């Protein structure tokens, strides 16, 4: 009983095919969205939302994490999410440097500078 119970691979092929179908469908939605006129921020939010759903489907069913012990899930997932969110700390600097660079370029149009005497 023991050996068989340990090698049991939960989930039927039908389930995996339906997960694959969902992943294809979400990808098609993404490609469709690429040609909708909308601001980059809205588009980025929707695309990342869809990507997180797709990643969750892959991790849960294909990588089988849904059928593992909860302790493994809690070891692997939360710290990864926290580390990724911590990387977001760089974004204010990115927005700041864009503001700096482009604001100071504006007041100098095509005027040629006069040479120093």
């Amino acid at each position: 009983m023991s050996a068989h119970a340990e090698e049991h691979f939960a989930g039927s092929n039908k389930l995996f095919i339906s997960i694959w179908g969902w992943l294809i469908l979400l990808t098609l939605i993404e490609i469709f969205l690429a040609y909708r006129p909308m601001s980059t921020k809205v588009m980025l939010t929707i695309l990342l939302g869809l990507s997180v759903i797709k990643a969750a489907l892959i991790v849960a069913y294909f990588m089988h994490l849904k059928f593992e012990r909860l302790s493994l899930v809690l070891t692997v997932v939360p710290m990864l999410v926290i580390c990724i969110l911590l990387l977001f700390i760089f974004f204010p600097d990115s927005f700041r440097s864009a503001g700096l660079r482009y604001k100071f370029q504006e007041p100098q149009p095509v005027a040629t500078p006069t040479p120093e005497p």
Partner: protein
Amino acid sequence: MSTEARAESFPAADWGGGVLPYHVGHRKLGMWLFIVSDSLTFSALLIGYAYLRASNNWPTPFPFYPSIVFSSVMTFCLLSSSLTMVFGVSASSKGDKAGARKWILATIFFGLSFVVLHLIEWRHLIHEGLRPFFLPEHWVQAFTTVDGIPPTPAFGATFFTITGLHMFHVLSGAVYLGVVAMRVNKLKHEDVEISGLYWHFVDLVWMFVFPMIYILSVDMHGLLAK
């Protein structure tokens, strides 16, 4: 199994040694930890890309054909390869070694088609004149803003780095699966499952690379077609 059963009744005894605290072998736990660290590598690269993109005039040069058509077919290949890998692991769990080998070979086939399609797509862009630190001249003209701010050449650097590292992962994954398929009779079921974990991870990374690199850089207004 008896130690396992005893550990189930005393959760704290999990840490007393001699049992598997996560109910997975040490190899599988190691692969999970590797996957976590590798996801951080890709997260850092993608966030670095987002950082550069948010602070620069970013070109959006990808036409529907070839770039988006190719990358969509590549996505299809990778998703299908994940499905065949699941079938391989499933066959292996039933002790069907020949079936497992067959499905793993199908996975390698899809993985290698991904790499070939991606290299053709790279070749298109390189022919257009894209380099890691230069944009093609006609891109610069098309994407310079009305204020005269040129598009950043960092586009090429991020594109080739991120897709290149991902392609390297697919390629090394194909080699890894090749070794597993060759030795499948000698390997335990868990080893096959571990190779599957790696392969699905490569697929998962592409689920973020594809929208962030390709979908968000579509040439929607046909600036390059003019």
